[in-house]
């Protein structure tokens, strides 16, 4: 199959498809557009959206172009179990976060970002750590989606990569800029219909067009024993295991998930997350099966670049009409995630930077917030387009950021359940985890000797932490401790002496373990108890604040009037670093 020519669209056809897609989504967004948008609606759509839209939005956001490409790459590289080791664990990221999501919503029903809740819980340092990691993650994701759009357009049309990147960036900004998150979730429904509908048709079509199931017999020799084994240890250790370690980290570190968590009706969190889990898993694994089919066929992507695998499979086996559907599917996948990233970034700048750190919640002017949100979208789009030209390794960046988020998982989750966790414990545990993670991940210190043994021990504890947290969300503390301890005992004999050889996996695991051990050690002796009821008071709507009332009544409230320190309620204590302390601490 090497050298097979791929079908291409003419410039007119591609322009027509882009105008159809982005023009259609823009028109749809105008149906809900308001002359005067509401700042809270711009960030979370009023915390009250229904199951249909929220499930569609969660599914569409979590599916991005790279996940489809990576799943197919996994199928092509690791064989029949490859797509499972990509898509299943990605799907479980959504499932495992929902019990924590219910808890987060119960203590902060009207919040906009997780970082905003951390400000209410601990103060500025923990908020900025989480917000900073969210910003980095969203920018990388945005850049990655623009790159995927540029590659697709350059592959299937006469336009080049740069023109493709600009077309996608402009299209996404067009329909997201005015109504923000509200436009993002509404258009997500249309995009998810296009994506899921396309997969339901395209995968069976290619299966038949490529002469399967007969090709399972004729192409069996193209698979190694590991690739043909559904229980391949190679696929698990190299693909699946690092993803299991990242399951909770991505869900905690990704503001797009948190934003939907705060937007959906509280009673619908469980069905929304469960549906999105199944939808994401089936969709991504289904597309990944194209990689398995390519492996049986002996299909060689041009230039050996596995990112060309799916587009070239589609171009080879699909007629023009279905190729256009495929094109819309990929554009829909990357656009739905890109608009979510823009909404996430704007919310962080509106709520965490301006709303909490510049003016304070009570004095934040919703109109200024909206302006900041829209400016953020424009600047983030420009930055992502600029970074896209650098052609950085997206997968490496994502794995790195995912491991960074691993350092935040225990301190963040513990802060929602355990009254003893302090701001200092949060901050120092995250920083110490990063201090160990970096030399392990990038092999700055040789792991041949004693340090290797230390890394193995910390990684084994990390396995216990990850599995324990997963169980804790569903079953509570006691089963979690049992599972965590069992995981450590059962893993130790196999992992001592070998786990440090997997730098990506062990780097992620030490981030979990060090942050957990330090956070626990610094909190367990603390006699103060945090009152979680305080969080709801500090994270309410911005449009209900005094500045909002002034803006509405005077129609021209000065944006920066009263800018300064956040207003404190009587009884609020002053922390040495200037952060507010909980009124409920006792």
């Amino acid at each position, binding site marked *: 199959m090497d050298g097979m020519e791929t079908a291409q669209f003419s410039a007119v056809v591609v322009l027509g498809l882009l105008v159809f897609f982005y023009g259609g989504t823009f028109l749809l967004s105008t149906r809900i557009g308001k002359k005067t948008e509401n700042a809270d609606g711009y960030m979370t759509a009023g915390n009250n959206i229904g199951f*249909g839209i929220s499930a569609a939005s969660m*599914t569409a956001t979590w599916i991005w172009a790279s996940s489809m490409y990576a799943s197919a790459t996994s199928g092509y590289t690791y064989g029949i179990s490859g797509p499972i080791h990509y898509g299943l664990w990605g799907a479980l990221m959504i499932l495992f976060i929902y019990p924590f999501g219910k808890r987060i919503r119960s203590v902060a029903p009207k919040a906009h970002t997780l970082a905003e809740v951390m400000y209410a819980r601990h103060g500025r340092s923990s908020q900025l750590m989480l917000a900073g990691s969210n910003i980095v993650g969203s920018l990388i994701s945005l850049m990655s989606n623009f790159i995927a759009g540029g590659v697709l357009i350059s592959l299937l049309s006469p336009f080049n990569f740069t023109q493709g990147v600009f077309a996608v960036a402009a299209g996404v900004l067009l329909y997201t800029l005015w109504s923000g998150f509200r436009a993002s979730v509404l258009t997500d429904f249309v995009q998810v219909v296009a994506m*899921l509908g396309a997969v339901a048709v395209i995968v069976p079509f290619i299966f038949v067009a490529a002469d399967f199931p007969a090709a399972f017999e004729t192409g069996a020799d193209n698979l190694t024993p590991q690739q043909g084994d559904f229980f391949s240890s190679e696929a698990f250790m190299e693909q699946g295991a690092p993803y299991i370690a990242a399951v909770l980290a991505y869900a905690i570190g990704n503001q797009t998930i948190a934003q939907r968590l705060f937007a959906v009706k509280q009673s619908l969190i469980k069905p929304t997350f469960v*549906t999105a889990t199944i939808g994401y898993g*089936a969709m991504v694994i289904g597309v990944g099966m194209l990689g398995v089919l390519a492996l049986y066929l002996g299909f060689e992507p041009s230039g050996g670049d596995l990112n060309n695998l799916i587009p070239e499979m589609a171009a080879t086996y699909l007629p023009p009409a279905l190729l256009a559907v495929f094109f819309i599917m990929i554009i829909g996948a990357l656009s739905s995630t890109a608009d979510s990233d823009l909404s996430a970034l704007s919310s962080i700048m509106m709520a965490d930077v301006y709303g909490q750190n510049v003016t304070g919640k009570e004095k934040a002017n919703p109109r200024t917030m909206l302006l900041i949100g829209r400016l953020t979208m424009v600047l983030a789009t420009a930055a992502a387009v600029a970074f896209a030209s650098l052609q950085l390794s997206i997968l490496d960046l994502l794995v790195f950021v995912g491991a960074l988020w691993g350092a935040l998982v225990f301190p963040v989750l513990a802060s929602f359940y355990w009254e003893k966790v302090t701001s200092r414990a949060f901050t120092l545990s995250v920083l110490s985890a990063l201090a160990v993670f970096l030399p392990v991940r990038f092999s700055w210190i040789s792991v041949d000797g004693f340090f290797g043994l230390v890394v193995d021990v910390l990684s084994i504890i990390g396995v216990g932490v990850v599995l324990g947290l997963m169980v804790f969300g569903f079953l509570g503390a006691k089963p979690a401790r049992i599972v965590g301890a069992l995981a450590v005992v059962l893993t130790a004999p196999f992992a001592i002496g070998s786990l440090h050889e997997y730098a990506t996996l062990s780097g992620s695991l030490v981030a979990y373990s060090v942050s957990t051990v330090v956070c626990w050690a610094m909190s367990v002796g603390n006699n103060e108890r945090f009152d979680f009821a305080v969080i709801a008071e500090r994270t309410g709507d911005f449009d209900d604040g005094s500045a909002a009332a002034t803006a509405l009544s005077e129609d021209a409230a000065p944006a920066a009037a009263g800018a300064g320190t956040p207003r404190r309620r009587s009884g609020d204590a002053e922390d040495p670093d200037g952060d507010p302390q909980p009124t409920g601490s006792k």
Partner: protein
Amino acid sequence: MSSFALSAYILMWPVIVAIVLFVISRAFFREWAEARRNGEGMI
């Protein structure tokens, strides 16, 4: 795995995708109809 089992394994995912699509679409249109009946916006 036999060809039959492999075929089922490959093709089960588009079927699940179609079911999820049906569930989400049905919920969306029900909510849309309800919002129209109540004279409210969906979002």
